[in-house]
């Protein structure tokens, strides 16, 4: 379109920019106010020096890595198998992977608490390790829609059938085929799902709070109720993490197009 910019579109964009940038500027400015009368990074120093911050952030970091690994282990063989052997099951499997977007997370965790309580057949919430396992599987469920789509997109770019048959004729086992042929080929596509999973898990609140695990999300809420400037510093850190993950996703998608083009 070669028309000159219209007035209304300028007004819309300027108002939109005000709405979207003011809270970002606001939280940054607020996070610098910890020392009276002068801007400083004290709030950040307080946060980063807080042992609770390190413990909860570390916990969520490990949780998100476990979730990513679990997601890859569960989703990759399934998406591969559905493409290769059970194409008629595709709609059903896809429907299941979309369910976590339909059922609110608070309902899912409510179900966990009732189903896996101490007096149930599988008392996962009875021990710390069991609760951690439950939390990791819960996060895997939350990330399922994104992970499945990422892996499936990756599989679309390779010829699954030919690769599998070639490997089979060379005597490869299913384990070898998935681990050494399929996974490396979809890894770049998996990355975009992995970064999104990371962004979701690192600040997640509801599951961690209701399962009573010391994660970063509940820590942030606790800070919000007890400190003035530190929460803003935490918000800045969280926003930086979200930006980082989205940037890495763009990078991964770019890389994917690049390798596909070179094929």
């Amino acid at each position: 379109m070669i028309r000159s910019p219209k007035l209304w579109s300028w007004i819309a964009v300027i108002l939109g920019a005000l709405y979207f940038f003011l809270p970002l500027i606001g939280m940054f400015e607020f996070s610098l106010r910890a020392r009276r009368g002068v801007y400083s990074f004290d709030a950040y120093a307080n946060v980063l020096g807080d042992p609770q911050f390190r413990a909860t952030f570390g916990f969520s970091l490990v949780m998100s890595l476990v979730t990513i690994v679990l997601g890859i282990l569960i989703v990759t063989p399934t998406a591969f198998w559905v493409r290769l052997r059970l194409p008629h099951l595709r709609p059903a499997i896809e429907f299941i992977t979309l369910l976590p977007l339909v059922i609110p997370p608070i309902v899912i965790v409510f179900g966990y608490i009732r189903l896996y309580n101490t007096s149930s057949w599988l008392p996962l919430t009875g021990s710390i390790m069991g609760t951690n396992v439950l939390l990791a599987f819960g996060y895997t469920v939350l990330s399922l829609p994104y992970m499945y789509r990422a892996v499936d997109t990756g599989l679309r770019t390779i010829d699954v059938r030919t690769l599998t048959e070639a490997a089979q004729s060379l005597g490869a086992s299913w384990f070898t085929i998935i681990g050494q042929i399929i996974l490396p080929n979809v890894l770049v596509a998996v990355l975009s799902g992995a970064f999104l999973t990371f962004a979701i898990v690192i600040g997640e609140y509801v599951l961690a709070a209701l399962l009573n695990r010391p994660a970063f999300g509940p820590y942030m809420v606790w800070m919000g109720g007890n400190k003035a400037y530190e929460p803003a510093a935490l918000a800045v850190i969280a926003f930086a993490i979200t930006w980082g993950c989205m940037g890495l996703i763009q990078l991964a998608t770019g890389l994917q197009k690049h390798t596909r083009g070179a094929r």
Partner: protein
Amino acid sequence: MTESTTTGGPIRRGRSEAWNWVGVAPFLLFALLFLILPTMQIVIGSFRNPAGDFTLANIAGLFSPQVMKPFWLSIRISLLTAFLGCLIGLILAAAVTRGGLPRAFRDGTLTFSGVASNFAGVPLAFAFIATLGRLGLVTVLLRDWFGINLAAAGFNLISFAGLAITYLYFQIPLMILIITPALDGLKPEWREAAQSLGASGNQYWRMVALPVLWPSLLGTFALLFANAFGAVATAMALTGSSLSIVPIILFAQIRGDVLGDPHLGYAIAFGMIVLTGIANLIYIVLRTRAERWLK
């Protein structure tokens, strides 16, 4: 899901068919244990009394005033932010795709929307407290520069309006992300055809563009509704528990049975599934309809 309904080729039956199912067994087991059974537990529980017998009393309890009020509040906030999210998102998307602005605006808006739609939850609440809260940047600047006292003017961030303004921060970008491809699908030929028939810009939007976009708009509206309805962390961090929307009531109920009836908690969760389920169903149906025009 039943195995007997599979329509696999008649050649690969018997042992081979069974072997095929082994490949997806881990996934199905995972989905069963951590997604389907927990949800079933809630759904079944909402039709049972504490003794385990079938009852409709819990569902009837949903219509008692103490439960209707939070549901109505949640529905209103979800409808309002979905509507405003759609409207403002459409205007912004139209401005950057059709407004004749430099291309960089479009790319920048889309990238930012990708980030902002994922910047929900606790940090988002903190950002708004730091901006529009009692000592927030905008509150202070309005007071010092323009002499406008937001609190005296009746504005309070910890309120229905405050929560709506905060929700829009992830609602509008989601709308932009979904509606931009639909706007790109509006072919220039349609506009030219309309113009050559003597239509004004206004008439083109009203009689050509909007009818084509209608399924996308309505579908996204449903998606935004579900998006706002299920949000817990943002509201929790912003308002504590002073604003009784459904997820916050459910949260308190799970923690400590504030309603004094565990099975009413099941019914509330079931009510949430029904509402977000219907909204998502509308979204999926309308999206398939909308995609017809984008080919």
